[in-house]
């Protein structure tokens, strides 16, 4: 625990210091006219190369592979170094980080971008961490957990007992692998995004869209007839209102994952934007005096983001579990409660 706390503290101090050089590079590249909006959008967006920092005129960058598919010329794989600073390679060039073909043909970009690389790192990290944890269980059996195992065990138990069991009910066990993976994936990715130089993975709409669509598919594939009965013949609604209610309920199916997608994307992106905005203040005012203030605010937002990182992971998991729970539920108890009478009687007895 103490070691972990120390690691976290190290992490904070690193980012607090690292924020400044990042902003400086943005300032240096667009030396005369510092445009904070462009700088921030560049930082939260995806990129074909992993730019770490710039010292003087030297850019310290990891060049990631570009993988492009074009109907005519098939699959093309090369390093993003070939495209640096607007260069054209094999008829491809980068237009504002967007891969386009010089002859106007449609390009399907499957490049290992900064986000894809982060996705791979997060996945590898998860595999290493949780297989280690699982090995701990295999080694120690039913004995008390130790080390990493004891750090993750409460979280796993929390997801199982407070999220899955309560929201899904007795059939929760089937969904545990997805819920646990999605929870830890979002949390780990959020944390990686907070590291200096880290990519804004969970603040990318493609990532949240994919996760939301997986949740939607799981919900639809595990739905039973009660779920559909609730949508096409909502209990307690007069027949005449059904033509209005059915489209509303059908929209509801899509709106639920849509809200999941937007919530995670907006929360994480907003955190990054606010932090970068505070740092930008220094360069907008061109005054060192503003630095302590923006650092203090930036640090405050950073702490807030640490909380948001796990909170959003929890919310995404909880809502996913609730949507699945709604789809596999046997009876809609909620209807009894609305009806009063029978539903209210036991409540008063308490």
């Amino acid at each position, binding site marked *: 625990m103490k070691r972990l706390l120390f690691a976290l503290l190290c992490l904070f101090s690193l980012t607090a210091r690292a924020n400044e050089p990042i902003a400086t590079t943005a300032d240096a590249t667009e030396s005369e006219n510092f445009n904070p909006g462009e700088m921030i959008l560049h930082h939260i967006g995806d990129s074909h190369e992993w730019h770490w920092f710039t010292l003087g005129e030297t850019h310290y960058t990891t060049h990631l592979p570009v993988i492009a598919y074009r109907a005519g010329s098939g699959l093309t794989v090369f390093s993003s170094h070939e495209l640096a600073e607007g260069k054209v390679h094999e008829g491809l060039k980068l237009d504002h980080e967007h891969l386009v073909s010089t002859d106007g043909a449609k390009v399907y970009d499957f490049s290992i971008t900064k986000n894809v690389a982060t996705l791979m790192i997060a996945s590898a990290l998860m*595999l290493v961490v949780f297989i280690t944890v699982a090995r701990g*269980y295999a080694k120690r*059996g039913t004995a008390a957990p130790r080390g990493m195992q004891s750090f993750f065990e409460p979280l796993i138990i929390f997801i199982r007992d407070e999220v899955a069991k309560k929201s899904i009910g007795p059939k929760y066990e089937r969904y545990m*692998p997805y819920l646990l*993976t999605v929870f830890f994936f979002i949390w780990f990715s959020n944390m990686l995004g907070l590291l200096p130089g880290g990519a804004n993975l969970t603040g*990318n709409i493609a990532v949240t869209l*994919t996760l939301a669509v997986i949740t939607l598919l799981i919900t639809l594939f595990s739905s039973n007839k009660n779920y559909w009965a609730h949508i096409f013949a909502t209990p307690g609604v007069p027949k005449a209102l059904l033509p209005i209610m059915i489209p509303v309920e059908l929209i509801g199916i899509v709106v639920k994952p849509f809200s999941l997608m937007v919530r995670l994307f907006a929360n994480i992106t907003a955190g990054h934007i606010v932090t970068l905005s505070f740092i930008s203040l220094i360069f907008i005012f061109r005054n060192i005096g503003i630095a302590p203030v923006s650092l203090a605010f930036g640090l405050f937002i950073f702490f807030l983001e640490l909380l948001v990182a796990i909170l959003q992971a929890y919310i995404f998991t909880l809502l996913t579990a609730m949507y699945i729970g709604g789809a596999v539920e046997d009876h809609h108890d909620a209807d009894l409660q609305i009806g009063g009478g029978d539903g209210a009687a036991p409540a008063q007895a308490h």
Partner: protein
Amino acid sequence: MNIVTPELGLIFWQVVIFLIVVLLLRTYAWKPILSSLKERESSIEGALRMADQAKLEMQQLQAGNEKLLAEARMERDRILKEATTMSNQFIEQAKTKATEEGSRMIAQAREAIQNEKNAALAEVKNTAAQLSIDIAERILRRELTDQPAQQQLVDSYLKEVKLN
């Protein structure tokens, strides 16, 4: 690059990698972890239940012991009481027997004394009579001729004399 436009490439990689991660973790992490957790929970539950049972058994045993102790105490009290009454009875019996024996012996002694006294008295009477006769004989041998008249007189005198 618009931030609200999802990129096809990233979606592709996200789907592929995320699904691989879910499948790998399901097999190599979540299943063993969750089953170990369940196993541990059931073993803890079992241990708790066993402890409860042991406690109950202990209580029962204690209650049994107490009951036994109470019974033993009652038995002791009963035996003591019995012994006391018995000893009292014995004492009482011995006392009455002793008293009876005593009074019997006293009565016997009295009777014996009475008999002895009577015998002694008779002997004294006889002796006195003999003595008187002897005395009278001696007196009369010297001075009197009419012996029977004298004897009669002496007898009548003697009868008048009550020794006690």
